[in-house]
């Protein structure tokens, strides 16, 4: 076997560097980034029960079932869910380490400037975990106390924006379970997270309860790179079919133990592609070809 010359190696490195920098044409990149014969690679932060947790035979939960179903519908041989801290998810998406994000990710105006969201697929809001013996009636009970949040999540954003207004201190942790630990070890009065996450955590641990729920019209949706509109639409079409035939609703009942609240995004098919009212929304009617 001939050894590759220095020139060949240089050429290869340059090619790798260029493709990494994303200089290939968009069409080429689309197929190369989502090869239909390779496993689908997506990312989520694990430990957010019952959305995504590590089970005996790989990831389990509402989010795991949902993305596996989508992968199957799109004809991909397998779905690989990469476990990543929340704070690393966006960098991984932009660096093309993953195809899109499947964690419980809130839809916000700021984020939709840089990522392409699907339509809402799950309704949520602020849930406050407190120790079983404590009481929380409303935001005023937070005065002079510490609120633990998962760094970089929408809860972090909310807490940062409201810390002064309600007079509390914000503690930021890398993962959700650490925020619960902070409450259990009395470092924080409450752990703030998505309502479904807090309800489930409280159902698993007698030492804590959900002290206060604040439904505020927020939604989760999957997020893609800006140039992947076509691929986003493909995934969204599958989600819409799952809403229509009730598969999404069944998944909710399976993992959360209750049917979704009336008017939840779980049951609502939105017009067009993308999130209505946010950047990345394509207000064009499309016919669904559900199986």
């Amino acid at each position: 076997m001939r050894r590759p010359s220095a020139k060949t190696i240089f050429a290869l490195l340059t090619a790798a560097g260029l493709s990494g920098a994303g200089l290939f044409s968009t069409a080429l990149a689309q197929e190369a980034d989502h090869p239909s014969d390779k496993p689908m690679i997506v990312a989520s932060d694990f430990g957010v029960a019952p959305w995504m947790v590590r089970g005996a035979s790989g990831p389990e939960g509402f989010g795991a079932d949902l993305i596996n179903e989508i992968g199957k519908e799109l004809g991909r041989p397998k779905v690989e869910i990469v476990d990543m801290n929340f704070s690393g998810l966006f960098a991984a998406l932009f660096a093309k380490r993953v195809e899109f994000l499947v964690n419980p990710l809130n839809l916000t105006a700021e984020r939709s400037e840089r990522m392409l969201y699907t339509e809402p697929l799950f309704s949520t809001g602020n849930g406050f975990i407190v120790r079983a013996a404590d009481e929380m009636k409303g935001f005023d009970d937070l005065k002079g106390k510490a609120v633990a949040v998962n760094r970089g999540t929408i809860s972090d954003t909310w807490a940062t924006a409201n810390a002064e207004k309600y007079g509390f201190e914000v503690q930021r942790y890398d993962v959700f379970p650490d925020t619960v630990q902070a409450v259990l070890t009395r470092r924080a009065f409450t752990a703030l997270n998505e309502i479904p996450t807090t309800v489930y955590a409280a159902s698993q641990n007698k030492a804590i309860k959900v002290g206060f729920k604040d439904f505020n019209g927020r939604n989760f949706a999957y997020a893609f790179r800006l140039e992947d509109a076509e691929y986003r639409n493909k995934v969204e079409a599958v989600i819409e079919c799952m809403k229509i035939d009730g598969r999404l609703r069944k998944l909710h009942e399976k993992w959360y133990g209750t049917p979704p609240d009336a008017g939840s995004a779980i049951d609502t098919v939105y017009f067009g592609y993308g999130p209505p009212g946010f950047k990345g929304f394509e207000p064009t009617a499309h016919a669904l070809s559900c199986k």
Partner: protein
Amino acid sequence: MDRIVEYYFNTKIFAIAFPEVLAGFRTTVIVSLLIIAFGVLFGLLLALIRCANIRPLNWIITIYVDVLRTLPQLVVMVFLYFGLPYLGLTLSPFVTTVLALGMVLSAFASEIFWSAIMALPRGQWDAASALGFSRVRTLLTIILPQAIRLAVPLLTNRAISISKGTALGTAVSLPETLGQAQSVMAIVANPSPLTLAAAFYLTFFLPLVVASRWIEYRYSHGR
């Protein structure tokens, strides 16, 4: 190229992130300096206690040093932060980070000081005692100045590498440079704040690295 500018060198994002990352940087600097001060001084103290040659004390110090040299820094930190409250001791993120990394540094420092002291010829002790110096006086005025000179090059490297561990403080909610950058990054969905954090780390640790080179040079050319 456009992508890397958009995601890692976005000036608009830099402007948004600057105040938060700067506040984090202040914490990083203070915590790092405290780690170095605590780690080096406590390590020196341990090495001096070992010189007294009291057997039970030596055992305790050896166990302390070996355990801390073995455990990953993050494990020490998480144990102090989430473990001790169950024993009734709740430390702040700031104190936890300084204590955890300071303890790790002290373990390495005591080992470095100890081996430097041992590296000096025994004859110096004997000569001093022949001249009527007490053991303590020999240690403080003859042995230690030479030992410190030997120890410094090893010590500066170790001190820098451990104080860089302040970034691990994010795990226990210390609002330092990296953590603040990550928070902003998630809000604006753009990793540019990480570049800003890297720049801040450089402005602090680069002079430290340069200074350590200078100290090593000064000490190795014995003056």
